[in-house]
């Protein structure tokens, strides 16, 4: 196992390098300009913009810029944002807690919805519960988050006035009061994302469980006289988890990438909105910083998925 692990990690390094090269060339070629606001103000002489672009090395050839970025990355120096001159790692760390708190919890909520509902629906195929679960799941993933987000704001914030809909990181209460305020303002973004994600996962869980429920060893388990509940849990769900685990592991990096639309609607200062503003402003160091961490997470979680896969299914041997 250890040998497999080290081999996979060794392969990960060149693959990450490859990804960073392609990322960098795409960013260099993509249109957009960090100083676009300067352009609209006729009072600012054009040479200021030209000087700025030159001072940040934006006009040298792509490969030079890539090696400069790579060498500084290796020294652990992530460079600073063209626009706000703040070091990239500080920018990301500033937004990491909110992202993990809000987006992370929404993924957990999604799982807490998808697993029980998916399994229960699959054990009673085409029953009333199954039909309702299915229909709700379809509503869940066929309405975009910007639509459901707005519906929730209209209902809970404006019509009922229960929840604030602008996410503020600067809550000045303390102790439990702080937690209460934080909970009130994150309920909606978490539910919007959680329901959307939960809906899609419910469908996968249901399909995976349906595949396993008719197998022989399930009848064997039942013949052992153990309760129907533990037959389902220990024998059916445990086997059905194999494809579902791959899916969940795939989704984990998205937790870091944040949900760009939801963050914009509820003004959650997550990594997603940082990435989108950086992309729209073609702020290369920030984009490279965020997407590189994203790439590492993708490669890491794929490795985790494969290991989990091997651990869950003893038949898969680690060559």
């Amino acid at each position, binding site marked *: 196992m250890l040998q497999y692990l080290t081999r996979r990690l060794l392969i990960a390094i060149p693959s990450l390098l490859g990804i960073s090269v392609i990322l960098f060339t795409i960013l260099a070629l993509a249109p957009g300009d960090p100083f676009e606001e300067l352009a609209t103000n006729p009072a600012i002489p054009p040479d200021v913009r030209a000087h700025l672009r030159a001072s940040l090395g934006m006009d040298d050839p792509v490969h030079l810029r890539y090696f400069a970025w790579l060498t500084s990355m290796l020294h652990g120096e992530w460079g600073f944002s063209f626009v706000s001159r703040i070091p990239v790692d500080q920018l990301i760390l500033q937004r990491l807690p909110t992202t993990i708190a809000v987006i992370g919890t929404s993924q957990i909520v999604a799982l807490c919805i998808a697993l029980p509902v998916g399994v229960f629906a699959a054990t009673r195929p085409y029953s009333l519960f199954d039909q309702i679960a299915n229909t709700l799941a379809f509503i869940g993933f066929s309405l975009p988050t910007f639509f459901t987000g707005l519906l929730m704001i209209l209902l809970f914030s404006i019509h009922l006035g229960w929840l604030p809909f602008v996410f503020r990181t600067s809550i000045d209460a303390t102790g439990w009061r702080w937690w209460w305020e934080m909970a009130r303002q994150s309920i909606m973004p978490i539910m919007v994302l959680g329901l959307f994600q939960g809906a899609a996962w419910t469908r996968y869980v249901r399909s995976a469980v349906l595949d396993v429920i008719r*197998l*022989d060893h399930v009848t064997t*388990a*039942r*013949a*052992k*006289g153990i309760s129907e509940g533990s037959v389902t849990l220990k024998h059916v769900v*445990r086997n059905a988890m194999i494809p579902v685990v791959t899916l969940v592991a795939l989704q984990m990096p998205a937790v870091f990438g944040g949900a760009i639309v939801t963050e914009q609607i509820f003004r959650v200062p997550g990594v997603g909105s940082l990435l989108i503003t950086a992309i729209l402003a073609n702020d290369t160091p920030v984009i490279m910083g965020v997407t590189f961490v994203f790439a590492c997470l993708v490669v890491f979680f794929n490795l985790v998925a494969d290991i989990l896969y091997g651990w869950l299914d003893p038949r898969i041997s680690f060559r």
Partner: protein
Amino acid sequence: MTRLLEISGLKVHFRTDDGWVRAVDGVDIGVDRGETVCIVGESGCGKTVTAKTVLKLIDMPPGRIVDGSIMWQGRDLVPLAPAQMRGIRAKEIGFIFQEPMTSLNPVYTVGDQIAETVREHEGLSRRAAMDRAAEMLSLVNIPNPTKRVHDYPHQFSGGMRQRVMIAMALSCNPKLVIADEPTTALDVTIQAQILDLLEEMKERLGMAVLLITHAMGVVAENAQRVIVMYAGKVVEEAPVGPLFARPRHPYTQGLIRSIPRLDLAATSHQRLEAIPGSVPSLLHPPVGCRFAARCRHATPECVATEPPLREIDPGHKVACHHAESLAA
């Protein structure tokens, strides 16, 4: 003294697209303590359904127990709720399945799966249950059981897996073991070992065995009493000796005649006799004797009325109007 297991008038039907299939249509089977009873018949005669219905292992719906009772030590299992059935399954009646390759859960070790049964019924701690599992593996002659108990099913051959199934079924030393064609999926050499092992277990633990098979050879070797089923009904029941010596039902006679004989084959070119025709539809079973269409001695009476199961000799029942005259 009540019999260990007394199935009387059991009817099990299955709902399908084209209507109700009457897989088991009025079956009476009895098993005494320490006895080995064999149910034999072509595939599709309802023997597996009957066996599985005892432990309610068939899916209901689409299956449904239409009529009859299953008396286990004087207690009828049919009306029992699922919770009460759990007390019977594996603790009182063990079950061995036909397909060893797929009957074990691939993601748990063999030890875990056996321990699970023991812990369920005897409340042993984890450690004690695993020791019992190792013990059971050695009982079924699996080499170095203490190590193999931690292996996974895919690390065992077909024969070994069937031994594990047996170990699992007997782990709570039940009073009866139902073995549904335990050796069909195995090759002949392993088949004999498994059946000897089953016999040995029966002697040692003093339990009854209800063996389901379609191989007459297996019946001859192991059974004390034999029940022949055809198209969802019992057509003949007798101790093994008289059954092979003087089969009274034309179907049983046909079955016995179709067994390849080593002694005859060596000396002359024995032509194997096959029973002509095929099994009747269970959607709309014929009114009279279900074997009439394929029976050489069929008479209008056979087609008209259904022959009841009669005891024409002590312990020898047959369901045929002309049983007496046909004694081959």
